[in-house]
């Protein structure tokens, strides 16, 4: 850092800025987000308007929900790679069950596999100590297989996405996407859990030092089981919303969002090793990724180059961000 100006004789400005960033890690993220929007506006003047914002938010919400699963699991040092499959299953099931059943019933049926997968993940990670990466990858594969079997049984009956989900997924009221009606309570709940409940406290503590929590009387498997079931149900709900947004059921609907969801959480400052981070950062991370995608889309570039650039930028941002907020 080349800033030499000193405000007080002992603490140079650069260090003070750094300390400030360390205390408020959200600030640099918001700066980056604004910066990206400004760049976008410069490259294509007039693109940033109310419609564009509503649209961006609409597409950021499913990503932010999946990233919520990652944030929660990453706090304990885990990861949930089955969220894509779980969301896809929920979406596919709600569309096919929607043909014969009323919407609420179809939605409830759609969330059953989510519960099962979450239960399996929780038992595997919490009781049998399978590494979360392997465990969730495994259940994800099993889930995909089951979905294919299920597809054959309903192949002739067609699909119908409940109107409510379409309204929720694509609708805009007074310039605000309806999806916010789902997202705001969910986000508030996640942040509340992390900051103000015993369960949230344990997520951080378990990710930080599992032995210490054990000595304090915490039973690891209980925390992990509850966590992965929560994560899966959240992914299932995201699948329902996403179905309403995309409206075309497929067997890999939400899969492309899995790795971005991890990236959003990491960019948002949640440590993949556990113990630090939070959902507010993740939301901004999801917005950053969505804006970045738009930015890369308007560049006249072949798909391959765009992906290379996307990956490189994500890596760069994450590395830079960690350097900024880490105070050492």
């Amino acid at each position, binding site marked *: 850092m080349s800033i030499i100006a000193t405000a007080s004789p002992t603490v140079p400005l650069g260090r003070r800025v750094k300390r400030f960033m360390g205390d408020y890690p959200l600030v640099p993220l918001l700066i980056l987000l604004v910066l990206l929007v400004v760049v976008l506006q410069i490259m294509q003047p007039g693109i940033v308007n109310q419609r564009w914002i509503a649209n961006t938010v609409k597409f950021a919400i499913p990503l932010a929900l999946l990233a919520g699963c990652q944030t929660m699991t990453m706090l304990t040092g885990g990861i949930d790679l089955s969220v894509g499959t779980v969301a896809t299953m929920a979406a596919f099931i709600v569309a096919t069950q929607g043909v014969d059943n009323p919407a609420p019933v179809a939605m409830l049926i759609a969330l059953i596999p989510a519960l099962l997968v979450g239960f399996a993940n929780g038992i595997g990670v919490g009781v049998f100590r399978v590494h979360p990466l392997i465990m969730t990858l495994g259940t994800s594969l099993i889930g995909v297989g089951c979905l294919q079997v299920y597809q054959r049984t309903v192949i002739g009956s067609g699909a119908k996405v409940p109107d409510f989900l379409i309204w929720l997924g694509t609708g805009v009221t007074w310039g605000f996407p309806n999806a916010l009606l789902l997202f705001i309570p969910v986000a508030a709940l996640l942040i509340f859990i992390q900051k103000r409940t*015993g369960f949230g406290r344990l997520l951080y503590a378990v990710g930080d030092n599992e032995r210490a929590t054990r000595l304090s009387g915490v039973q690891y498997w209980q925390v992990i089981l509850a966590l992965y079931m929560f994560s899966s149900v959240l992914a299932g709900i995201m699948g329902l919303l996403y179905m309403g947004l995309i409206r075309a059921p497929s067997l890999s609907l939400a899969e492309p969002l899995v790795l971005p969801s991890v990236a959003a959480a990491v960019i948002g400052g949640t440590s993949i090793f556990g113990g630090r981070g939070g959902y507010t950062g993740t939301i901004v991370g999801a917005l950053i990724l969505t804006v970045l995608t738009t930015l890369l889309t308007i560049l006249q570039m072949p798909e391959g180059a765009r992906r290379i650039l996307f990956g490189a930028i994500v890596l760069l941002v994450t590395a830079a961000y960690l350097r900024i907020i880490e105070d050492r």
Partner: protein
Amino acid sequence: MAKNYGAVAALKNTSLSVLPGEVHALMGANGAGKSTLVKILTGAIRHDRGTILVRGKAHLVRSPADARRAGLVSVYQEPSLIPDLDVLANLRLTQTPVEPFRNWVRELGVPDLDMRDNARDVPLAIQRVLDLARALAIEPDVLLLDEMTAALPANLAERVLDVVKRQSRTGRSVIFISHRFVEISALCDRATVLRDGETVGVVDISPGVEERIVELMLGAKIEKARAAQRQATEASAHGEAGTRIAVRNLRVGTKLQDVSFDLKDGEVAGVVALEGQGQDELFAALAGSTKPSGGTIEVDGRQVRFSHPVDAVRAGIAYVPGDRSEALAMQQSVRENIALPFSAAFRNWGPIRMGQERATVQSAIERLQIDTRAQREVQRLSGGNQQKVTIARWIAVDARTILCFDPTRGIDVGTKQEIYKLLRQLAAQGKSVLFYTSELEEIQLACDRAIVIFGGKVVDILPVEIADEPALTRAAYGLPRDAKAAVGILAETASSEGARP
């Protein structure tokens, strides 16, 4: 050789100069900057300002490799072997010559080391010795020892001090960080005292200099909070106390053979043992981390079988491990660490009553006088304050029994006194404390009785009046109470300690 070290931001204005062939003590209360200075000297962290001169030549010490080239090698407070590699691979990793290493290990009193053992399986104390041997094998100009003897049982500590002394006779220098005055006065030539990141004095070690050093360290004179105060608290304790925990013929694995004793309400029972006599297993069994292979544990007259620490916690038994990193969630705040046991049970997973929690935590913090300037992350606290947090947690939940495993390891004199006082207060409130210590003098400072374990068995239970260092040492080596026979250098130093003016 002169080695100067100027102003640093974390350390404000620190200088230290060490002569060739000198054993130089570096002293200071917790958080005074001793460890920081050592880390800078060995290149583990970088300094912002100031210079390091070795033999009059300025050296840029940016990494441990730089430091090693400049002839500075350190043994840190925590073991630094990689746990999953065997000893030999650990040596290869640091390009340590094997033969000299082997010789030093033998010299240091560990004759039967298997170089193929994974470092993980080597007991903590031996790991420290290996660290030292590794440093010695490189033949450094300046050897830095940070709390080298803190985790060592008396017999190994003796050998270490001996080797250090001989090292200095060959013209090499040693920087020695320790809280034990006994060692400092036996070993060191001069001492540099740090306070709040500043050098506050350099003194020659001569008889009676301890008072002066303590004064420098604390910035003010402290009263010798010793026997007088203890007698006062003791008078209030003791009556017809009930038995809190009764251990009968307890066996754990191969280490703990047959241990029986009672822990009464309102007492602090000291446990004394040489390294690896089964004390770890005893505490683990009482804390519910290990299942005993035989014998019984009764709590309040009822037999219990702990299968998870949660069972012990529910029975009101709290375990404070010796290794602070085992007990703390380092990236979380002081408050969250202290409040951790509150959230443990499933029924407490809901919303936290923040006001209530703050109040409880605050009162625990005040009671232990935890320095909360850096409370956002426990890892930024000094060792002594971290230790206080691990205890505060159980004060906050009002645990009836606290198992303290060497809680004063590597913390400064002032904090030690506070911990003794706290343990006495707890006992006065009717709580019971089981207190293992590797520093024998602590028994008379804090305990009511001393339970001596040797070879996995209780060999003696001494009332506090006669549990002075020589008596405990004899007992810890499995010698009967009235034996007059000398037990080697250790007994001599311990008794000559009192004779010194």
